[in-house]
């Protein structure tokens, strides 16, 4: 929450005004053990799919074939991971995903911080309409775009390229990122801008030296969020790409599942590998990630 605090507080002065004192001194009775009685099983149940997939991934093929998929591991083998990474093409597709994600996140945040700066700090006619139109674009169901986007990539001559995937991700994401960044930039204190202007800084200089550095918290939140979204995307990849060698990890995994249908350890290992990068982002940037999720929901 803290990362995006400025828009939240400017947006909801009433909530902010009454809250802090009340929250601090709320006396609470000692917690009952029932919370843990209820939550320990729920937590274990929640983690069980991940744990079971981990079990399957580290078992040998023969162990799974002989004792069934549901049995606890009686063997330990990293064959599943090795096969998935090499023959399964997971390594190559991870590379594709990393490339697309990095380019798309940087480009979308760059473009949307441009737009957000223009909309939040300048008296652009109809800026509210422009802003909401841009946000609306991101809310459209992607299905309404798929067929035309596929034919546009054809017409422009970038069909079946990672470039096309990056561009499509950028185009679809910009509206939301602009909206969030606009909310943040609008809350930046005006005095800083006044001072910079008096020092003779132009709009470009103010953007580069003041707005971008000050917007770091919300850029970080959006970067964490956008990384997981773009890395986890399946439908755009399936729409834009045809050749397997270019598939990002999600699409490649579905193929892996077809090719290694009975080798559960390979499928499980591949799925775990696919989950690792976003899990790392999540644990490193948990605070930013959660604050990113709250964007658009704060009252």
């Amino acid at each position: 929450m803290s990362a995006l605090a400025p828009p939240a507080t400017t947006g909801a002065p009433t909530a902010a005004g009454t809250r802090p004192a009340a929250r601090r001194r709320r006396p609470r009775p000692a917690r009952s053990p029932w919370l843990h009685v209820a939550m320990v099983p729920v937590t274990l149940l929640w983690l069980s799919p991940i744990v079971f997939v981990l079990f399957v991934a580290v078992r040998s093929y023969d162990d799974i074939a002989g004792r069934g998929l549901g049995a606890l591991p009686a063997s330990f083998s990293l064959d599943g991971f090795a096969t998935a990474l090499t023959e399964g093409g997971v390594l190559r597709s991870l590379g594709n995903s990393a490339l697309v994600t990095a380019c798309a996140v940087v480009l979308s945040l760059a473009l949307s911080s441009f737009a957000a700066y223009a909309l939040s700090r300048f008296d652009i006619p109809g800026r509210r309409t422009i802003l909401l139109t841009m946000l609306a674009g991101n809310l459209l169901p992607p299905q309404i775009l798929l067929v035309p986007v596929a034919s546009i990539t054809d017409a422009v001559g970038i069909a079946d390229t990672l470039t096309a995937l990056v561009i499509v991700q950028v185009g679809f994401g910009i509206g939301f990122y602009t909206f969030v960044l606009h909310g943040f930039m609008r809350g930046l204190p005006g005095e800083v801008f006044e001072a910079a202007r008096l020092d003779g800084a132009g709009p470009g200089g103010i953007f580069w030296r003041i707005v971008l550095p000050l917007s770091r918290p919300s850029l970080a939140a959006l970067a964490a969020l956008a990384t997981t979204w773009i890395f986890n995307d399946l439908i755009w990849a399936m729409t834009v790409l045809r050749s397997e060698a270019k598939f990002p990890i999600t699409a490649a995994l579905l193929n892996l599942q077809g090719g290694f249908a009975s080798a559960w350890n390979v499928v499980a290992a591949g799925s775990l590998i696919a989950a690792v990068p976003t899990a790392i982002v999540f644990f490193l940037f948990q605070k930013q990630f959660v604050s990113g999720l709250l964007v658009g929901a704060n009252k």
Partner: protein
Amino acid sequence: MSAQPSTTPTRRRNRFARVPLLVWVFLLVPFVVELFWVFWPAANSFSLALTRWDGIGLAEPVGLQNFRDLAADPIFLTALRNNVIWVLGFGGLSVVGGLVLAVTLNKPGPLVGLYRSAIYLPMVVSLAVSGLFWRVMYAPEGPINGTLGLLGLESLERQWLADPAVALWAVLIAAVWRQVGYIMVLYLAGLKGTDGTLEEAAAVDGANAWQRFWRIVMPQLRGVNTVVFAVTVIDSLRTFDIVWAMTRGGPYNETQLLSTYMFQQAFTTGNLGYASAIAVVIFALAIGFIITYLARQARTED
């Protein structure tokens, strides 16, 4: 609160000139990108929906025929029914689950952070990968059937993803597993914004926890509820990845959603006009909720 060079009333045409050229470029480049890659394709879908097109030759205009065909297409009707089940089932279960967990885990305490992390951990796993995880869980020899066997409930064991009677719900549970954490985060934030003193006052007046929740806390969560509601419906209508990863709409189209059927028609069968008509239906179903969400955001913008 803003830095605009200040407040003398100016005539409208001067406003264009007052914005530096560079700033116009800053605005127009992203805007044009979105216009070209989002709004232009969206507009195209509407006109394609009125044609029959295989993607190679010329699109042949057929008026509203695609929509008439849809109304008589049993698979489309199944997909539509499934989508309604999905909105209610997926939406209902994840909202109730997320709200209950948020209320349970609202107060800080030992282990509470751990519980929260466990609940929203699935969110970092992509929908496609979640689907693969749950394929392992639901496999005929997999852990779910194994656990049922251990508990002596062999009669409940089944081929979860191949049994038309339960496949949709099996996929739905997997999707809920991933969504609950998100809803919980939204409600946790909402609960943070509620006024604790009101609840205490009610407690002093003898209201029990149940009454306090419904009479005091819930009304304060109205804003979050709107967002959760809109987000849930929009997400439900978009749902594609997890179904595609788990069943591709099978068995016998029993888990087909509008999005998967649309994708199949477009890219497997190659009926691009017909697929566009399905996309238009999805749009028509979503637009009301999109506007709800936008209206709310517009209000917070003021």
